[in-house]
């Protein structure tokens, strides 16, 4: 799946960086998990909102 392949590549790149502080590490893994969860849901769940839907929900009243 698209989301998994990009996620794996991102992890691979993250591991290549040396001298990471623990704050950076935490921030990266949080962001990674958030995006992985969102993208996997977008791939698998049919009714998951796309960014288009989010914009229309927010601004569709105009």
């Amino acid at each position, binding site marked *: 799946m698209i989301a998994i392949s990009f*996620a794996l590549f991102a992890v691979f790149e993250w591991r290549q*960086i040396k001298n990471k502080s623990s704050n950076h590490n935490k921030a990266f893994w949080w962001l990674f998990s958030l995006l992985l969860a969102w993208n996997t849901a977008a791939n698998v769940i049919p009714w998951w909102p796309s960014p288009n839907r989010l914009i229309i929900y927010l601004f569709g009243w105009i």
Partner: protein
Amino acid sequence: MRTTSFQIFRFACIYMLTMPLAFMIPPLIVTSGYLGWIAVLIGGTINFGLILCTYQLGKMASGQAWTAFGEKITGKWGHRVVLLILVFWSVYYVSVDMEQFTMFYRSAYMRETPAWFLLLLVGIVILITARWGFATLVYIADGTFIVILLGIIFILVIFTGDANYQMLPALVTNHDFHNVFSDVISVISWNGEWFIFLFIMPQLKFDKNTLRNLILANSLVIFAVLLTWLLVLLNFGNHYASQLKYPVLQLIRSTSFTGLIGNADPLFIGLWATSMIVHDAFLIYVGVTCLGHLLKFKENKPFITLLAGTATVAAFQYSKNTTLFQKDLTELGFISFWVMINGIPLYYVLIAFLRGRLGRKKLRG
């Protein structure tokens, strides 16, 4: 990096020309018919105002990266909210671009190919291009500018062959103005994101030459869009042109020239796709720069992968329901979101003016 005088002009042209030339013209003909030229001219003039605001901000920043400097105008948290919105916006824009390109390419050349395959390919290409870095993007734009410009001139020359010039008086005699305002908004949403050139700092300077380059780029974009719109209208007429989804492609393929010229549409699409990839890679670069500043990272490469991957997945979501996607693109709410983002330099200049910081030359600290 090596800089030349008109580098930003070439980069801005490559960035701004692609999407309007390919996708803005059919909806404009549907809504405004013969009066689309008014919307393009007014929208283009408003763009000059946005460029001036951007120049003002760039001058105040004087070499500092925009992500760091903006805090001095709007305060820490106001600027961070804007950066967060820009991260979302850049990923969103890339996903819309990818889906439009994939829809166009699949419908014209690869009907049996599943959408996810093309999207994955395009996503990987954008990812690799973005990883090369900002300097490389500028050099690519430098190199491809003259080729793309020649390609556009060539296409326009082909169109003049079969154009029906007797339709020209309709441009001024047809008085149906009720859609002009919404079309002006639409034009600004398509080619109004001049604030994005604030992100050329610190690698490139923002000075009077940059202002000249951006104004020239805007003029060229207005001119090219007007000419293409006019020739599409003169070749197909008002009614039929509003039915076609990709009139430029139809014109290239159905030209009365034969041989290499008549079959050169893959060449033009290749050139156009190159500039689209540069456009999207720069957007990912902007998103990653904002994200890196928000999370205080120095190494940004993994974020490029994450953002490009998110854009690909979003584009895949759109591809599951292309009718809804196309309808959403013409909704006023959607267009308004875009225009609100494009107005960012205006808000910053207003806030700087209200806080009395507009005239100050030095805002370091």
